[in-house]
């Protein structure tokens, strides 16, 4: 009996797998250490990933009068409130510091990716606990769950980006070819969000504390990331510090590519490196913790 086409098959695990019955079976034994096979399994279960993300997207604004308009409304109102306060009260002179970009559009361009990041981190942190029922009853690579939770925030981002284009028209900011970099930068945002979210989702299974830690941390994080303020207000010699934040260089780069200002590739590179590092660590913890999810959740 061949199992080569079956998607439920798992490669032998551990250093010396016991002799499989016919050389192609699933070997179930205590798991130790790291395995690279997790990512392969994720790929094999990409359809489940898709359906879970689709479920979140479909369910998100069910039975709301405004529907997907909420995706637009939230960042838009936030932009108005923040630009009223920071644009006027604190009076950051945007005209000088960001090459003539009006503050509302500067803010909105950074707010959207930040909200995408923060929603993804929150959703993936809670994802395993929210889907506990599935974890206890069916086998599938557990990694699918936190990863799929990026779907709905991504959809929100796409919808509210339409408003971004409208704002650009309003302020006569013409998109440039640089906009083509956007998918790449959004991907880096996903990597950063997953790096944080995957590890935290595993921790939340054992310690529900993180459900409360995360929203608070994200609020602080929001203010230390150049979302509402331009990096130019910080002294040049501390810039490297800002970029150790995986979202620091990324938000700047996304804003630059949308508004057509020069992209700081050094900053972007550093932030990307940190994001990838976080992801590797998150995956490592997830791998380690995964074997007891079904027993603990």
């Amino acid at each position, binding site marked *: 009996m061949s199992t080569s086409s079956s*998607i439920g098959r798992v490669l032998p695990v551990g250093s010396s797998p016991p002799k499989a019955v016919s050389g192609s079976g699933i*070997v*179930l034994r205590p798991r130790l250490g790291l395995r690279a096979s997790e990512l392969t399994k994720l790929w094999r279960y990409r359809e489940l990933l898709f359906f879970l993300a689709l*479920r979140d997207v479909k369910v998100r604004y069910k039975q709301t009068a405004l529907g997907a308009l909420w995706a637009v409304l939230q960042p838009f109102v936030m932009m108005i409130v923040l630009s009223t306060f920071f644009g006027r009260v604190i009076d950051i002179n945007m005209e000088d510091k960001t090459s003539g970009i009006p503050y509302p559009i500067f803010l909105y361009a950074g707010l959207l990716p930040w909200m995408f990041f923060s929603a993804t981190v929150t959703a993936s942190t809670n994802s395993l606990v929210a*889907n506990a029922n599935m974890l206890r009853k069916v086998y599938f690579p557990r990694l699918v769950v936190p990863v799929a939770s990026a779907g709905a925030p991504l959809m929100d981002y796409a919808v509210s980006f339409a408003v971004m284009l409208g704002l650009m028209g309003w302020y006569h900011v013409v998109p440039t070819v640089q906009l083509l970099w956007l998918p790449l930068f959004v991907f880096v945002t996903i990597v950063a969000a997953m790096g944080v979210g995957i590890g935290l989702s595993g921790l939340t299974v054992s310690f529900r504390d993180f459900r409360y830690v995360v929203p608070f941390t994200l609020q602080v994080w929001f203010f230390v990331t150049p979302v509402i303020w331009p990096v130019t207000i910080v002294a040049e010699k501390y810039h490297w510090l800002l970029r150790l934040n995986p979202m620091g260089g990324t938000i700047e780069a996304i804003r630059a590519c949308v508004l057509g200002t020069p992209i700081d590739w050094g900053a972007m590179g550093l932030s990307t490196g940190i994001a990838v590092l976080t992801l590797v660590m998150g995956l490592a913890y997830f791998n380690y913790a995964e074997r007891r999810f079904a027993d603990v959740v």
Partner: protein
Amino acid sequence: MSDVVIQVRDLGKKYRLGGQKRLDQTLPEAISEKFKGMLNWSGRSGWRIEKDQGNEFWALRHVNFDVRHGEAVGIIGRNGAGKSTLLKILSQITDPTEGHAVVDGRVASLLEVGTGFHPELTGRENVYLNGSILGMTRREIKTKFDEIVDFSGVERFLDTPIKRYSSGMIMRLAFSVAAHLEPEILVIDEVLAVGDAAFQKKCLGKMDEVAKQGRTVLFVSHNMSAVNRLCQRGILLVDGQVAAAGEIEEVTSRYYHDVNQGAQTPQIDLRECRSRHGDGELEVLSVELLNPYANNFAVSWDQPIRLKARIRVNKPVRDVTFAVGCRTLDYVTVFNVYSNNIHHTNRVDLSEPGERDVVVSIDHNLNAGFYNVVLGISSGQRVCYHNEMAAQLEVLDIGEQEYHDKRRGLIHCASQWSI
């Protein structure tokens, strides 16, 4: 190629007792406890690592067996014997603590009917979602979609969110998705056997069909007649270990005669029973089956059910009626019997506080299976005592007369024919 498709060797699964408490603790507590546990200062040998012992529990230990291709194997044992843990390990939901199992082929387990169903999504969307959770590809679901919908009989409501479905419709839809999986190895938990009688019949029918198609089936159940009918081989688990394995009849009879003896008594203490309620004037202390089979709360199908209830009268109560009810495990009432008739001519007053026994003998015609015994005491319109699940009674297909095991339905009836 060997035809052994499941090979289990020295499999063990350890759980920590008191796990609940540990999970609720906060991070700092967990960290400090971990350090405290790991490093204990002992004067002579210095820091040493202390192992957390004593509060461990082996749900499975040293389990060995093989299953060949096309076999239907029944896994039986009392509650807590490790059956579900074994199925969870074999379907990869949880990892074993020691030993290993080799499973050759795609495993689908029907312990998860309807897992991942989302109330806001439509029937159609849920079929796709649930199918992909169970490991079907999108193309597979697409080709079988009409079949699945036909089988479930909910085609008219396919584009309605399932939160508007009746629970029966959700069950049917969920089962039809699961039934259209085509795994090489099918794992079925008895959890499946809930729902109405028609649904149970459908499940068992599906089991028959699968077994006949030559697929490998693992079947966990308490329903011995179903296990006997569907399986060729059996594995008996007792306290996480294989106590017997072999021909199904041998294993099931061993289950009756040997393992259960003394484990479940025919007398049940109800003083702490959770399912009781009432005004406290009367209390049922215990219930006993006077004619048990193999010293269990089980009775042969051709014997009357003879129950003795020990009751305590706290306050005098007038005009008392005692009632015994019989329900299926899915709460269908099979019968109720009362100590008084409808005109209350058989009046009983309990004027003396104290303890006394109430004995009832019930001639029944129940078929083999499990039933919940309901106890009730009332006075006029007032409920003095009610216990929806005082005991679980098994009616056995073993008796002085031969049991007709092809018989379906809850009860059997005497019949005269002229042909």
